[in-house]
């Protein structure tokens, strides 16, 4: 496909939304061109040996190169904020964003990506679908999303179980059986089984998480090998990364990718074409691409920039939502001093739901991670004890350490917004703060969950609040709305007041329930892709 040719659709971005929006278009034989910066890992790709974490620690003399990083970037002394969880081999996902996607804020420090695959390349793979209650107030319902959940679940591979969390997570036919829980998580789940009735009465439910990780081979990818290397390497491709779908798309002759392009603006012409202007990030020039329709999926903040700049809405505030995040550091007394199995995966071991009012009312979801597959110095640096004794204590307690990551729901308000000043290099200005009532609500939920955790013999040692942007779930800037209002989209992702400009990423979600957004974003992107396909055929 020549870059001068008018294609059926241009898709901007290559992250989870972009590849899933592109898929139904490409599969239908439509010509699709993806425009993306597409940074890749030039430092660690291919350098991490294929083997279990424990074996590499025992044998690999070069392990410091990836565990600590070539520039020692894995030894950080800063505040735990957005991106603190990225290991050195994952940090490339944020490369160049300070320069090319500047943010101005005193309260919100988001993670952005210009990598091939976007933020999905470092994603935790948690995939809880939204329930009907989660979608209350949206112009779409669960019936609209359900078929696309199934399609995407098959495309990316979701594992999970039909257990106590079914009322909160819903059925899923394309789901694989769960990957084995590690010893730490198993100890807590055993305790839960013994205390189920009492815990359920207080609104606490535990079960297997829905994770985009394979328990059996699927689409050329391997089942998770329990090597505990999922934070460091993608060997075996068990954990879903958007580049796996991108690789599938590249097999189609009607699909092309133009890399090293940062899309600046779009313009709809009278002849029905959409003209997209993109800068070459390796040079100084810009170029234009033409299509019959445009799908923006550059990540919420990236897409918002493009829309505000294209429609000249400078200094105009648009809403922004993001799940407030907290990390509860836990000591699991159920397994203290007991031998643990070496074989394990690194992702969430179980999912906790706090639903004192049942599944039809808003509830809170958390995911439990064991503190394994990371080195102890990261724990020791925050523990105010002399280092020698610190080491002794951490060596003995760390096998029973865990972190419960909670994400609270978020709704738009007058204290959460962003705007763009005029000029190509202008930063996106963001203001974000929770109201006192929201903070109190979240604190009360956390206190209630801590009581439940004590019944599970999990001692909360510390609560960390990594800052407003830390959940990396940014949404709501161009929300879907049933009213024809500027800077909103219709229920099918079409930007109001445009004919063929669609938005397929987090921007369109008006609010966020207490669940990771990524899986729903992918399902919605597939839904929007299907709609664009129908519109193009019509």
């Amino acid at each position, binding site marked *: 496909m020549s870059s001068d040719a008018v294609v059926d659709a241009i898709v901007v971005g290559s992250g989870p939304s972009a590849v899933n929006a592109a898929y139904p278009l490409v599969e239908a034989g439509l010509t699709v061109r993806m425009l993306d910066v597409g940074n890749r890992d030039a430092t660690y790709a291919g350098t991490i040996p294929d083997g279990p974490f424990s074996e590499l620690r025992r044998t690999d003399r070069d392990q*410091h190169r990836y565990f600590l990083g070539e520039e020692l970037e894995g*030894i950080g002394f800063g505040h735990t904020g957005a991106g603190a969880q990225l290991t050195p081999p994952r940090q490339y996902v944020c490369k160049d964003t300070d320069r090319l996607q500047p943010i101005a804020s005193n309260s919100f420090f988001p993670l952005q990506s210009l990598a091939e695959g976007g933020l999905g390349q470092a994603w935790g793979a948690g995939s809880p679908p939204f329930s009907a209650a989660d979608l209350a107030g949206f112009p779409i319902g669960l019936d609209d999303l359900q078929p696309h959940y199934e399609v995407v679940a098959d495309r990316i591979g979701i594992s999970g179980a039909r257990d106590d969390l079914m009322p909160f997570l819903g059925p899923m036919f394309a789901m694989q059986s769960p990957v084995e829980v590690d010893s730490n998580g198993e100890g807590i789940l055993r305790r839960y089984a013994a205390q189920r009735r009492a815990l359920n009465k207080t609104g606490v439910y535990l079960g297997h998480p829905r994770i985009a990780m394979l328990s059996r081979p699927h689409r050329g990818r391997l089942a998770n090998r329990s090597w505990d290397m999922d934070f460091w390497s993608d060997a075996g491709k068990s954990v879903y990364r958007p580049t796996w779908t991108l690789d599938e798309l590249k097999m189609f002759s009607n699909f092309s990718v133009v890399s090293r392009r940062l899309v600046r603006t779009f313009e709809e012409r009278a002849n029905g074409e959409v003209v997209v202007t993109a800068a070459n990030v390796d040079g100084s020039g810009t170029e234009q691409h033409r299509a019959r329709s445009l799908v923006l999926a550059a990540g919420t903040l990236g897409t918002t920039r493009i829309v505000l700049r294209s429609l000249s809405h400078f200094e105009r505030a648009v809403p922004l939502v993001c799940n407030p995040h907290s990390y509860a550091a836990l000591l699991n007394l159920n397994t203290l001093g007991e031998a*643990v199995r070496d074989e394990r995966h690194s992702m969430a071991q179980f999912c906790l739901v706090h639903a004192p009012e049942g599944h039809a009312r808003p509830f809170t979801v958390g995911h439990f991670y064991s503190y394994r597959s990371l080195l102890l110095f990261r724990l020791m640096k925050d523990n105010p004890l002399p280092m020698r004794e610190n080491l002794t204590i951490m*060596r003995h307690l760390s096998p029973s350490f865990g972190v419960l990551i909670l994400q609270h729901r978020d709704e738009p308000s007058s204290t959460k917004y962003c705007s763009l000043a005029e000029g190509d290099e202008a930063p996106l200005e963001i203001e974000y703060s929770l109201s006192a009532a929201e903070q109190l609500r979240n604190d009360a939920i956390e206190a209630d969950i801590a009581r439940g955790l004590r019944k599970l013999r999990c001692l909360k040692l510390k609560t960390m609040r990594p800052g407003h942007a830390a959940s990396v779930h940014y949404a709501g800037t161009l929300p879907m709305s049933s009213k024809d209002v500027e800077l909103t989209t219709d229920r099918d992702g079409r930007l109001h007041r445009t004919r063929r400009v669609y938005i397929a990423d987090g921007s369109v979600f008006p609010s966020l329930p207490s669940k990771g957004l990524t899986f729903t974003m992918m399902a919605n992107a597939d839904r929007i892709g299907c709609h664009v396909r129908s519109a193009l055929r019509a």
Partner: protein
Amino acid sequence: MVATSRSHTAPIAASRDLADLRREAVWLARYLIDVEPPTDLVERYVVANAKVLRETPTARDARILAFVHAHPWSLGWLDAGTALTRGAPLLRRKLVVMMAILEATPEFLEQTAPIDDAGIAALAWRLGRAGAKAAAKIVGGTLLAAVVVRT
């Protein structure tokens, strides 16, 4: 003449700094896990200082570090004495860097890997002993740090 004098003193100062860092690496490794670090680890520590500990030390940090260099026996006490200080003192950051380097070296896995099968009695005894030692060192170390910072 001035330019010549500068070009002579800079490398001398740098080599003295390097020698200090190499000595420091050995003390830190001995303190943390009772080992003599091999040369490649010492050099890794020197490089790490240039990469992740680049800020100019505060007056307090400089005094504490100078005292440790003059009296290596004080390392454990001053580590304990500054453990509760806000904002990660330089000595603490240096210890974290050396700990990271030792942990990411297979030869020292035995001394740094998690221990998961101690049994509850041994675990309680070891934690109690480490906690008591830590408390005593914090008391003594805090006094020593106060003296070192004032002198």
